[in-house]
C-alpha cells in the first residue's frame, strides 16, 4: 500500500480515537464527580437507535448517559458564537486554535501499539520523540495566553498570566523528571523506551524511578491545568479564567483541548513508566491479533490513568498560587535534580539493567 495512504489512515485513526475518548472522558468526569459527591450525574440521554412514530426515541445506554457527548457537542455547535465588542478579534480567534492544534499534534510521536500488518503503530517515529512531545505540548500555553489577553478583561487576563507562569515553571520539572528514564534507556525515541521496557521490567518497577514518577504525575497535573493546580481557570476566583469571554464552539475547543492534554499526559505516563502497550504474558510480537491486543492494552492504560486524573481532581482541593510556585521551584526542581543523581548512581553501580 502507498505509505502516504497508510500515514493518512493512521492520522485519521489517531485523531478520531483521541476525540472519541475526549468526548467520553468528559462524560466519565461528570459521572465520577457526581458519584464522589453522592449524586448520580447525567443519566438520561442514550444513543438513539430508532425514532418511533410518536416521536419518542428508542435509545440504548440511557442510564449511563451514553448519548450525552453527542448532545453536548450539538449544544456547543448550536449556541450563539458571541464575540464581545471589546476583544482583539484576530487573537481572540487564534487562541482556541492554538490550544487545540498542539493537543492533537502531540500524538504524532506517541507509540500507541507495536506493529499491525508490519506497520509500526506510531504516526512519526522520530528519534527525539520526547523532546518533540514536550516542545509541542508547551506551545499550548500560547493559545491560553493569547485567549486571555485578547479577551481584554480582567479575569481572563489573570487566568492567562497565571497559566503562563505555571506552565513555564512546571515544564522544567516535567522535563527534568523524565531525564533519569532516558539515562537508563539510552534513547529519546519513545518506541525505544517501550522496547526497552518489554525486554526488562517496566520503568516504574525500579525504586529509583519512583521519585521521578511522582514528580512527573504532579507536574503533568499542573501542565494540563487540572486540580489541584487548576489556577488558570479557577471558577471561584476567576469566573472561568482565560475562557470567560468565550462561548459556543470556541469555548468547546478550549474544553476539548484540556481533556486532550489530559489524555496525552496519561498516554505519556503509560509510555514512560508503565510499559506503553506492553503487558506481561502478552507476546511482544505476533500477528494481527497481537497487534490489536497491544493497541487495546495501551488504550486501557490511558483510560485508567485518565480516570485517576479525574479521581484526583475531585479529591484534592486547589492550592494557593504561592504554594504552587513554591512546590514547583523549591521542592520539585531540587528533587528532580536529586533523582537524576540517584539514577546516575544506579547506572554506575550496575543496578539498572541497561
Amino acid at each position, binding site marked *: 500500500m502507498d505509505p502516504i495512504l497508510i500515514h493518512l489512515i493512521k492520522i485519521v485513526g489517531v485523531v478520531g480515537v483521541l476525540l472519541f475518548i475526549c468526548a467520553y472522558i468528559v462524560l466519565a468526569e461528570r459521572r*465520577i464527580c*457526581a*458519584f*464522589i*459527591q*453522592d*449524586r*448520580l450525574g447525567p*443519566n438520561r440521554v442514550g444513543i438513539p437507535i430508532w425514532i418511533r412514530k410518536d416521536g419518542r426515541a428508542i435509545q440504548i445506554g440511557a442510564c449511563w448517559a451514553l448519548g450525552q457527548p453527542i448532545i453536548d457537542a450539538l449544544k456547543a455547535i448550536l449556541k450563539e458564537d458571541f464575540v464581545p465588542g471589546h476583544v482583539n478579534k484576530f487573537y481572540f480567534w487564534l487562541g482556541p486554535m492554538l490550544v487545540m492544534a498542539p493537543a492533537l499534534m502531540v500524538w504524532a510521536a506517541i507509540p500507541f501499539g507495536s506493529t499491525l500488518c508490519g506497520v509500526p503503530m506510531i504516526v512519526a517515529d522520530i528519534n527525539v520523540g520526547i523532546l518533540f512531545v514536550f516542545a509541542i505540548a508547551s506551545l499550548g500555553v500560547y493559545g491560553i495566553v493569547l485567549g486571555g489577553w485578547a479577551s481584554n478583561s480582567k479575569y481572563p487576563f489573570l487566568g492567562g498570566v497565571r497559566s503562563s507562569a505555571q506552565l513555564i515553571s512546571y515544564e522544567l520539572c516535567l522535563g527534568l523528571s523524565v531525564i533519569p528514564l532516558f539515562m537508563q534507556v539510552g534513547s529519546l525515541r519513545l518506541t525505544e523506551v517501550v522496547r526497552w521496557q518489554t525486554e526488562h521490567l517496566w520503568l516504574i518497577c525500579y525504586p529509583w524511578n519512583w521519585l521521578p514518577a*511522582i514528580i512527573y504525575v504532579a507536574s503533568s497535573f499542573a501542565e494540563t491545568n487540572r486540580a489541584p493546580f487548576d489556577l488558570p481557570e479557577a471558577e471561584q476566583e476567576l469566573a472561568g479564567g482565560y475562557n470567560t469571554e468565550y462561548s459556543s464552539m470556541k469555548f468547546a475547543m478550549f474544553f476539548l483541548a484540556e481533556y486532550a492534554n489530559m489524555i496525552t499526559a496519561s498516554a505519556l505516563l503509560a509510555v514512560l513508566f508503565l510499559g506503553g502497550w506492553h503487558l506481561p504474558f502478552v507476546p511482544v510480537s505476533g500477528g494481527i491479533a497481537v497487534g490489536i491486543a497491544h493497541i487495546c492494552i495501551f488504550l486501557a492504560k490511558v483510560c485508567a490513568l485518565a480516570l485517576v486524573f479525574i*479521581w*484526583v481532581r*475531585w*479529591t*484534592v482541593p486547589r492550592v494557593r498560587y504561592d504554594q504552587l510556585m513554591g512546590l514547583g521551584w523549591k521542592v520539585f526542581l531540587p528533587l528532580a535534580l536529586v533523582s537524576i543523581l540517584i539514577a546516575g548512581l544506579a547506572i554506575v553501580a550496575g543496578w539498572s539493567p541497561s
Partner: protein
Amino acid sequence: MRIERKPLTIWERLYLPAIISGMMLTFSHLFRKKVTLRYPEQKPEIPPGYRGQPVLVKDEDGRVKCVACQLCEFVCPPRAIRIKPMAYPDNAKYKKVEKTPDEFEIDMIRCIFCGYCEEVCPEQAIFLRGPYSVTGLSRKDMMFNKEKLLELGGTMPDPIKKWQKK
C-alpha cells in the same frame, strides 16, 4: 484570638499520605447510596402541613366551606383570585349560609404563594396544601377553577361545625 499553628511534622509535610487517604475516602463514596431523586419517576414525600399551592376544601358533609365573602380576593396581593358569589337557592339545605361561590378562580401565574388568603379566611375554606408542581402549557391551563381547586383540596374535617349550630 490567636490560634497557635503547630508546625507540620515531616510525615504531614510529605502531603502524599494525606492525599492518598483522601483519595481512599472519595473512592469509598463511589459506592455509597446516592441522594439524588430521579424526579419525574420518583416523587418526593411531602410532609403534612406543607404549604404548597392554595386550594379549596369541603367539610365532611361535602359542603363547600367557602361562603364567598371575598376577603381573600380583597387581600390577595397580586390579585390572583376572582370570585363570583351566588346566593343559595331557597330550598337548599344550607340556606342559612346565604352565599356560596358560583365561580372561584385562582390565576396560578399570578399567585405568589404568600398564604394571606388562608390567613384571612373566616371559614377556613382555603388552604395552602400539598400540591407543589403547578404546571400548564398555556395561560388558560393556569387558571384553576372551582372544580379543580376543590379536587386538589379534598376534604378538611371541621370539628366546630358552626353552621349546624346556628
